[in-house]
């Protein structure tokens, strides 16, 4: 990474840290959700964008992560920050296990299988034998965490929303750096090789089965961590908030943000968080109509998403500067 882009990231990070002190509490909450979605989208992008495995059921892993956090906090009194790694580990295992049968499925059929997972999950969460943990249809309500006391001692009184935003930001930065490292290294290249031509990848010595199920696991882990953070931010989990449309929302996010792009996850997250709010003012049904139109429009006109457009704009600017 060049020194210039490193400085750019540092400025961006400073701005992101300063954000909750400049906007209202509700806005900080919204930006927390943007970060949550960004982590989830990065997860889905690892699987679908980089590894080429289509998932229409990633809402399921988001839900598992969210329920992990909620159950641990509500039933076992685990502190909120400790639920994040547990949710990640559980989803890593769940994703890896789901990835094993998925190895035999390609393209359309994998989409079908994950579609089934996404549609049937809310019903599984309502299952009455699990009610003791999941709270059934009622779901679970959890407490919003307070900022640690030592911030106040330094004279920096954070309210709950500001603290949660900063906490989510820290997790997001860690996850993005890890993801960036994973994807530019040996494993990331193997993933892309499998996506582009799995026979050639196999011939080069890439262990297709291992890498593909690993991609599924890591992807589910990211989404699960996002789910746990999302549950803490929203303070509530219930089966019907994890319906099939959540999975589609995530798909919308990666297509709009840009497939196989790390910053794309952030663009996509901004889109799925703020566009429905604007569209809601037209009609209750409008957000989804707009999502649908955007999806078709992007597939036809901008298959590389917003990230692709940004890349192109930057390249063009760079060329102009060289010419003059």
């Amino acid at each position, binding site marked *: 990474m060049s020194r210039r882009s490193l400085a750019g990231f540092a400025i961006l990070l400073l701005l992101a840290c300063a954000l909750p002190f400049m906007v209202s509490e509700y806005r900080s909450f919204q930006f927390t959700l943007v970060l949550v979605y960004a982590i989830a989208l990065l997860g889905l992008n690892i699987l679908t964008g980089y590894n*080429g495995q*289509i998932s229409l059921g990633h809402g399921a892993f988001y839900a598992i992560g969210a329920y992990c956090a909620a159950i641990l906090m509500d039933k076992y009194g685990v502190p909120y920050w400790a639920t994040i790694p547990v949710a990640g580990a559980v989803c890593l295992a769940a994703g890896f296990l789901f990835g094993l049968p998925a190895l035999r499925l390609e393209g359309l059929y994998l989409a079908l299988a994950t*579609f089934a997972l996404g549609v049937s999950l809310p019903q599984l969460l309502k299952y009455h034998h699990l009610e003791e943990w999941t709270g059934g249809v009622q779901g679970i309500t959890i407490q919003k965490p307070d900022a640690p006391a030592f911030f106040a001692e330094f004279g920096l009184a954070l309210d709950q929303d500001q603290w949660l935003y900063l906490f989510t930001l820290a997790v997001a930065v860690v996850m993005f750096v890890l993801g960036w490292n994973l994807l530019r290294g040996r494993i990331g290249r193997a993933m892309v090789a499998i996506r582009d031509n799995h026979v050639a990848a196999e011939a080069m010595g890439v262990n297709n089965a291992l890498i593909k199920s690993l991609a599924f696991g890591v992807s589910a882990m990211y989404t699960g961590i996002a789910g746990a953070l999302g549950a803490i931010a929203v303070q509530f989990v219930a089966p019907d908030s994890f319906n099939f449309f959540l999975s589609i929302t995530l798909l919308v996010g990666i*297509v709009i943000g840009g497939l196989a792009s790390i910053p794309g996850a952030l663009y996509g997250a901004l889109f799925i968080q703020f566009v429905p709010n604007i569209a809601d003012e037209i009609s209750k049904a409008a957000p989804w109509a707009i999502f649908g139109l955007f999806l078709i429009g992007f597939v036809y006109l901008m298959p590389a998403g917003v990230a692709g457009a940004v890349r192109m704009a930057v390249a063009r600017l760079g060329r102009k500067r060289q010419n003059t």
Partner: protein
Amino acid sequence: MEPFIHQVLAGLATGGIYASVALALVMIYQATHLVNFAQGELAMFSTYIAWSLINAGMPYWGAFFLTVGLSFVLGVVIERVVIRPVENSPVLAVVVVFIALLVILNSVTGWIYTFTIKTFPSPFPGQPLFGNKYMSSHEIGAIGVTLVVLLLLYVFFRFTPLGLAMRAAAQNPESSRLVGIRVGWMLALGWGLAAAIGSVAGMMVAPIVFLDPNMMGGVLLYAFAAALVGGIDNPAGAVFGGFLVGVLENVLGAFVIGNELKLAVALVLIIGVLTVRPSGLFGKVHVTRV
């Protein structure tokens, strides 16, 4: 024994509806080798058209056939306008377009007709046929309609030149083009047929589950399971699969796992069939040369 028979027969009735939707899925799969995720919403939209027509004072069967015709046109238009540009794109692009269609149809319907649940009339008499105590006339009627649709399709594909042309276009597009078949239009016709079959399924299921924009979510999942169990390239297999899934769903739901996990039956069937025997019970086994 009695409740068991009752559940099996009720399963056959819902199975008939799954069979119709599965048939529509097979129709599109045969023509284009794509799985249409928007099939359920398309059927739902058609059913709303029928509802409008009936509410405007049309007699039931008039509305029924007009809806089938309109759905056919809608299917053809969607293929020509939306699907055609991505025909040769990667699978992901196609799946995304299908999902986009799904959400657009869903939300547009909600926009026009609101999300409140509506009742939908049944064309069959209210009292049970022949004084039997197991099945309502609507359930028997729905099974009958499914079988009639299957028969019509069989006759169409087996005995008409157009049906032959469609089969040829699906099996070997290049050669079909060389003998003068307009392959593009055959695909569009396939979509039209699928939309028409879907509309029949929608109108048959609506009196049971009531009309609302999300009514087909579960039905579509069972239809996927049915199509896969029967073999996704075999229409008769899909119908058999539909009845099988309907019975399994009802019997397992009533006696083994409880009604809350019914959708999980579809999930397990889909993943099970795809991993163990992807060609289903009656499908062709495809071998690809690497």
